């Protein structure tokens, strides 16, 4: 990969993982590396950029997807997927270089942490997974009707899918909506299958009557089990950062 030609182009893709894998396929065939890769949703026109719009091709992305599993390793796929979910401006180009170099040297790529893009991909994955893990504990469902729950979150990274899947395996018979208010996306699960939909004009449902009572009970429980002598706000904030507090029911 080191002697591949660097072309002065900016690739624009649709912001999906399949779109990014299509770019990887095109680069691998043409043996070129683009200057930048940007998401079409937040691209601002710039007359110095030599832009190329990349159409997502599921056949190409499938081949790269299988290629990563067979020729590099499963861990590389996880690394690139979770890095892709993170909120970083240059994630795409780093993931591209990581996968392409991975095709050259195989599973050994994950040990080369001193290469800057490998390190960045690893770090982005860590950030996304860490946030996902925190929200698994800090997400608060509110009851809307008998079997439907609603939860709002404000995450930095786009972790709706892994988070939602976690709750599907925990509460398989429940129907729920997880609302990512920062990105205006909703994870909707109806008890059988899930879908991620845009929620720009969604009205937040009103909660059931019991909900308020249970919220009061939860607050009471939270205050009762607290040991005042052992309060340690600094430690508490490491585990539940203040930016997530607005979606909590209790007030720490």
């Amino acid at each position, binding site marked *: 990969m080191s002697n591949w030609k660097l072309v002065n182009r900016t690739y624009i893709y649709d912001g999906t993982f399949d779109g990014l894998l299509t770019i990887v396929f095109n680069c691998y065939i043409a043996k070129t590396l683009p200057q930048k890769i940007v998401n079409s949703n937040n691209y601002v026109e710039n007359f110095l950029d030599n832009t190329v719009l990349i159409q997502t091709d599921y056949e190409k992305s499938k081949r790269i997807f299988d290629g990563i599993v067979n020729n590099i390793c499963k861990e590389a796929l996880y690394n690139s997927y979770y890095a892709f979910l993170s909120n970083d401006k240059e994630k795409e180009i780093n993931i591209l270089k990581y996968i392409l170099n991975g095709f050259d040297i195989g599973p*050994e790529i994950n*040990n*080369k*942490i*001193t290469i*800057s893009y490998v*390190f960045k991909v690893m*770090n982005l994955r860590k950030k996304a997974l860490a946030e996902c893990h925190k929200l698994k504990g800090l997400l608060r469902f509110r009851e809307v009707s008998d079997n439907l729950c609603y939860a709002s979150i404000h995450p930095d990274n786009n972790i709706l899918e892994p988070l939602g899947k976690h709750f599907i395996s925990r509460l398989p018979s429940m129907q729920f909506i997880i609302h990512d208010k920062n990105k205006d996306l909703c994870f909707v699960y109806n008890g059988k299958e899930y879908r991620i939909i845009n929620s720009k004009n969604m009205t937040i449902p009103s909660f059931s009557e019991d909900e308020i009572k249970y919220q009061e009970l939860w607050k009471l429980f939270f205050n009762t089990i607290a*040991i005042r*002598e*052992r309060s*340690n706000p*600094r430690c508490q904030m490491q585990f539940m950062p203040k930016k997530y507090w607005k979606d909590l029911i209790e007030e720490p």
Partner: protein
Amino acid sequence: MSINIELPSNDSLKLLAPQKEKAGILKPMTYVSNSIKINKLDKNRFKEKFVPAGQTTQLIIGATPESDLKILKLSESLYNKLNLKRVYYSAYISINNDKNLPTLESPPLLRENRLYQADWLLRFYGFKVDELLDENHPNFNTILDPKCDWALRHLDKFPVEINKADYFTLLKIPGIGVISAKKIIRARRNCSLDFEALKKLGITLKRAKYFITCKGKYFEKVYKFNENFIETNLVYQERNSMPNPEFHQLSLFDKLQPTKEDELKCLTGNL
């Protein structure tokens, strides 16, 4: 399963929990640990696991006069002989007034923290209690953590060369833990590491920089390898990171009110 010992010696048990007895606690614990072992060995006979989450216990810190050395000795033997998953330490909070109970203003949280740090050193870092504490130092240092304290008393084992040391030697460097040590071992298979590379790996050098060399070189800004120098620097760092309400930034204006003397000086004109 948790069978709580609560107090770390027989005398203390007699004093504060006369219904408990050392033998009466250790007997069921031994039974549980033996049953777990038998269950693991004979998987064909026992389809279901016995106590799958393992066995734990709890000790109360600060209610009785035991030293850290005695408490840790007990937990070490519990880990070695009874294969406990964990020993929990909880700082004593005074609720009742009894002549046998001490009156503490606040629970000894720092001591609890030090014990947990040492507990981790026992379980994951290959330390032994005799290395950390002895009869002359039965309690932990309040300013430095147990590993730093140990390293300062064993400076002959340092500095450690990052590119050559094995896993357990890396683990003994203050500021380098299990994750960092594994990262270093993983990364140095490909190229030898220098301080820049360590920073890139996300390894904090705050404490480690005094105890390591990379490719034979000492950290640039640390120019001396001697006990006094390292200790003062470490203590200084720790003091800075500790919240200390007694000290605050002085301002030239808000606190300095003119005294009577100042007024007199102004009047007489010899300020």
